[in-house]
């Protein structure tokens, strides 16, 4: 029974990061400091989320793309930020995930959106354009020339292959969102405010520096978000250890709840930390940042 039950669970579960993968990364081996790596990964995940919205992809595709993007960077055999530009991996992860879904999109659409989001003058993203969106639209700032398109397309497709090779073609990502809705119904929570808050937590957790989607199965993420959301909304749940019914133990639940609650503080600290500057989105920008930090250290 165990084996047949387990094989039937595959589409509800994910491959998780090994302890080795969590404690090493190719970038840190290449001398990128952990806090810089976390900042860049956080910004890259946000870039993916925003691009997905502009491409009108549904959130499940975007979420899967962010998980794939995050998986790519971890472990000593993962991708290094000093070799691959974070913007390229973000675009390729989104493009590839959409390709496998019911809503495929074209390289041109993807590259148009990324050109806009990475424009230092017109981008609405705080970590690309700290001045904020311009008052008037400025299409000339994010025009993708035909030559630029051809070159970028080559990069997109090449990085797609590199992602596939790095992940051993493991493109499967199970998400907690639908599981959470089922659990909410099972628990008899009628409040749509709780459900909304659950989704907010699940979507923020995609950006977590603790890589929650890489360390825990979707059912655990679902349970933790329900626990947290019902507390925040003041909805009382059954007075027993209901999480065990959904195969989550107290320790995992506690860890995840703390992780999810810390997201807001982490995001604010990031904005504060990079105030007025852009987070490096390319290998060249990263080299510049590393050089800047080295000079600062030497200056002191």
């Amino acid at each position, binding site marked *: 029974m165990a084996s047949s039950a387990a*094989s039937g669970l595959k589409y509800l579960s994910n491959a998780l990061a090994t302890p080795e993968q969590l404690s090493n990364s190719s970038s840190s081996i290449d001398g990128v400091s952990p806090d810089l790596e976390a900042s860049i990964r956080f910004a890259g995940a946000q870039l993916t989320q925003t691009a997905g919205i502009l491409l009108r992809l549904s959130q499940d595709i975007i979420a899967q793309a962010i998980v794939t993007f995050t998986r790519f960077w971890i472990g000593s055999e993962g991708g290094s930020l000093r070799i691959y530009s974070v913007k390229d991996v973000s675009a390729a992860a989104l493009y590839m995930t959409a390709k496998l879904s019911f809503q495929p999109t074209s390289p041109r659409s993807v590259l148009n959106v990324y050109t806009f989001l990475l424009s230092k003058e017109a981008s609405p993203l705080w970590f690309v354009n700290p001045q904020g969106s311009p008052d008037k639209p400025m299409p000339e700032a994010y025009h993708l020339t035909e030559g630029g398109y051809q070159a970028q397309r080559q990069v997109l497709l090449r990085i*797609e292959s590199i992602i596939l090779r790095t992940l051993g073609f493991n493109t499967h990502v199970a998400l907690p969102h639908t599981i959470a809705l089922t659990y909410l119904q099972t628990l008899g929570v009628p409040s749509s405010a709780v459900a909304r808050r659950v989704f907010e937590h699940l979507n923020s957790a995609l950006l977590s520096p603790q890589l929650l989607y890489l360390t825990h199965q979707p059912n655990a993420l679902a349970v933790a978000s329900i626990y947290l959301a019902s507390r925040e909304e003041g909805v009382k749940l059954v007075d027993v250890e209901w999480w065990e019914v959904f195969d989550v133990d107290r320790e995992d639940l506690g860890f995840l709840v703390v992780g999810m609650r810390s997201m807001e503080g982490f995001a604010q600290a990031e904005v504060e930390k990079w105030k007025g500057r852009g987070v490096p989105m390319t290998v060249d920008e990263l080299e510049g940042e590393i050089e800047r930090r080295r000079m600062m250290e030497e200056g002191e």
Partner: protein
Amino acid sequence: MSSKSRWATDDDPETEAILAQRKREKEEQRRAKAEKQRQLDEQQAQASASDSQPQDPDTTAPPKKRRRLSNDHNEDQPIPTANNEPNILSFPAQEWGPCRNIANFERLNHIEEGSYGYVSRAKDINTGEVVALKKLKMDNSPDGFPVTGLREIQTLLEARHQNIVYLREVVMGTKMDEVYLVMDFLEHDLKTLLDDMSEPFLPSEIKTILLQVLSGLDFLHDQWIMHRDLKTSNLLLNNRGEVKIADFGMARYYGDPPPKLTQLVVTLWYRSPELLLGAEKYSTEIDMWSIGCIFGELLTKEPLLQGKNEVDQVSKIFALTGPPTQQTWPEFRSLPNAKSLRLPPTSSAPTGTPPLLSRAKFPFLTNAGLHLLSSLLALNPSTRLSTKECLAHRYFREDPRPKPKEMFPTFPSKAGMEKRRRRETPEAPKRGQEAPKLDFASVFGGQSSGDTGEQGAGFTLRLG
């Protein structure tokens, strides 16, 4: 966004050399660092192993991380509220890691060239195991990695079942566009086997084969996967009587309600009438039609419906099943390609749901068998049997019973020894083709079904 790219092809050989040199250096640096890191880890591991037994991080075991710690914890002090430990389900441990290189395999011989790649027999140099290597066709498409290949890998990785060919891993060559699927090697495919057999399988053997195919397909459909290219050449058989479904080049996920999908799927001879008539929404019933065709082929040793083209295929189908009527398939008139179809007067149409096929073509089939076949080859997809209904069908419970797998006869293997001859069967449709707008006006024209039909079975008396 600057278009300066690290990967843009640079024609200047000097810069190229410098770039290559730099890359090499970086690579070496990285390796050295990884090695240093590894040594550090080892030291730490040894240190922690010596002071705490249960946290021994063995590198071969699947990752357990926190879960493992908490389990250990629970053993020491059980949760006070419950008498026994909570029964918490553990999920199958899965990991990911980069692809290995093709150099780990030694190619033995070529097996066949399918529509989506070349298959050869190979040996894993490290373990000595014989495997099947399938090279994916990378059609240099402007869309990057072919989506069919991606779907094939994704569905195969997810479809772990004893009746579905086991994808061990994906390996790559030195170039980015060399991708190989490493799969378990099976000695035969049913098509080649049927071609070489002088007599068809015994009824008991047919049941064993069908039950296994149905059980694999049942699993696929449960996982929301449609195969979309079931045929005898995609069903593999090993010398232990095990049948496995292979070639997921056409497979994909489906949804409920069914999404709009291409009709250009399934090899012509196994393609269902709703696909031929241009249905834009279809579901798992198309696989069930193919099963019906395979069942018929197992019975007679010949492909059941060998149309020359789409129009001919439809006319062969109607010749076998009788034309659709308002009763048997009410929705059929609204299908795009049915507009041009002129049906003969309905008086000749058979009755019953589904109408039973003619007994003359399958003289040795029992009533239950004929009912199963007729229900698989039901024109109306909504009356076609599902995998679960088939598996519960009385045909499989009546005598002769399915032959135990261990008793299955063995055959000399073509795949293991020599290059296959090229088949004359048509191939699955190519991706990206336009679905043809077909004119079916001639379906009931002069042409009769006599050219493939009545093959005298001769005098055979075989009991399973």
